[in-house]
């Protein structure tokens, strides 16, 4: 069997999380979620449950025609099942910080900004938090700045919110009522103890803790032969580094 890259395993895991979706949207700077969504779409091509994938930074995979506000409008209308958000920091209550570390506004380290998170996190039913780096620096007890909160009081309109968090070490689910993460799957290269040590917040452990599933050779073939060339179109740097170097 050919060597399987770390990123490909995560792509495969994310792809599994999309199985009942009808429409997945991919925002800025999300090559791994984008690849995962296109993979799921390809694998369901000949089934009754087609998957629509909208990749904002692509011409071809963007079926919106009402300008760049349409993603937000369509999401608020409840037409997008899954969206991905990242975070410079993510904390145990699923608050995300895309703005920077230190004391706002004069930050120690400024990052890009909150993008559409302050609406998307509220309205898309299945938000998957994705951050490759899994360290006490990224998964923190409390974020320095809340770009978008993980939970909201009942007098705030909030049909959507966090469902999963996936990193290069583990997959977590989020429990809205208990306001905490539970580990679901672990990268076989790490122990649970190692994951606990690299996580700045407490999370619930799982008696049925599973390992990341190795993608089948068939899936890897689909990914490399059919998906990679598509990704090259709109995330050229990422695709070149992973598949075309």
């Amino acid at each position, binding site marked *: 069997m050919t060597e399987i890259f770390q990123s490909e395993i995560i792509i495969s895991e994310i792809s599994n999380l999309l199985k009942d979706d009808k429409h997945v949207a991919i925002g*800025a*700077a999300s090559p791994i979620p984008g690849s995962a969504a296109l993979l799921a779409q390809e694998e369901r091509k000949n089934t009754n449950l087609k998957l629509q994938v909208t990749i*904002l*930074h692509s*011409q071809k995979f963007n079926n*919106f*025609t*009402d*300008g*760049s*506000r349409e993603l*937000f*409008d369509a999401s*608020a209308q409840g037409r997008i099942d899954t969206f991905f958000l990242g975070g410079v920091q993510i904390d145990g209550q699923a608050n995300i910080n*895309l*703005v*920077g570390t230190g004391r*706002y*506004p*004069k*930050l*120690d*380290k*400024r*990052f*890009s*900004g*909150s*993008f*559409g*998170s*302050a*609406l*998307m*996190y*509220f*309205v898309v039913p299945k938000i998957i938090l994705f951050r490759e780096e899994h360290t006490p620096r990224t998964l923190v007890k409390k974020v320095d*700045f*809340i*770009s*978008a*909160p993980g939970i*909201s009081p*009942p*007098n*705030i*309109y909030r049909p959507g919110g966090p469902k999963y968090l996936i990193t290069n070490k583990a997959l977590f689910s989020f429990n809205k009522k208990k306001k905490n993460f539970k580990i679901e799957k672990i990268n076989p290269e790490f122990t649970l103890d190692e994951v606990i040590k690299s996580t700045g917040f407490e999370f619930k452990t799982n008696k049925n803790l599973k390992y990341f599933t190795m993608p089948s050779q068939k899936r890897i073939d689909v990914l490399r032969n059919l998906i990679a060339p598509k990704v090259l179109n709109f*995330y*050229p*740097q*990422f695709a070149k580094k992973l598949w075309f170097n």
Partner: protein
Amino acid sequence: MVNFTQITVKDIAKEVKDNCLLGIPADYSGVPMSVTIEIIKNKTKGLRLYCLPLTTIQGDMLIGSGCVNEIETAAVTLGEYGQAPRFQDAIENSKINIKDSTCPALHAQLQATEKSVPFMPLRGILGSDLYKNRNDWVVIDNPMNNSNTNDEKIVILPAVKLDILIFHASKADINGNVQIGRRRELATLAHASKKVYVTVEEIVDEDFFDSELKAAATLPSLYIDGISLAKNGAWPCGLTDYYDIDTNEMSKYAKAAKYQETFDEYMRDFILQNNYSNI
């Protein structure tokens, strides 16, 4: 040949006055880089940038060149080329003010001006620190009984009118109509701006309104105050159906912009050997 007065990129840059509120299109909407260079050469000061909803190299260059006093945006980033270094430096060292926002809020504030209403409501936002740092945003109790959320709190955002909008597009027709295709956020930006200037790759010998299909992809001349030809006007950013982003130049910029000295050096070269015609 054309039924409107064609102007130059320099003419457009002159319309960008010190301290004005300047509309900044996203990287996918047609970045007016040729005009950006002229603004920098003019040493324009105190600009307030309103990004719909983000900016990449255009905003970073303007900030690094000292033209900017304030920025309202959902993000500044070089995308696949990393963080925006001059922006980071400016924030970390309090050189500019920032009004951190979120994409749909930046859209809604312009839509309010488009409809000439004083505000727009928007869901989300509450519980975010964005709200805490915006004294122009107000929370009210939803005055409607039509919500399933009891005692709902909702944010209202002020209408924002831009002083000037500049973007780059593919084509203008002989009557000064501009093709924007699916980039309809440019229409919202234009509707909400006092002045609108456009650079284009080409001016074509037809009237877009003679075809229903082309008309649908058009921003009508009634919103446009001046048009200049500027081949490769978005370079090193891309333009749909014309050219892709210049990955080499973007990498070069991302590296140079890390430090003010190397940025300044880069900008000296960039200005001298610029790739735009019809300036």
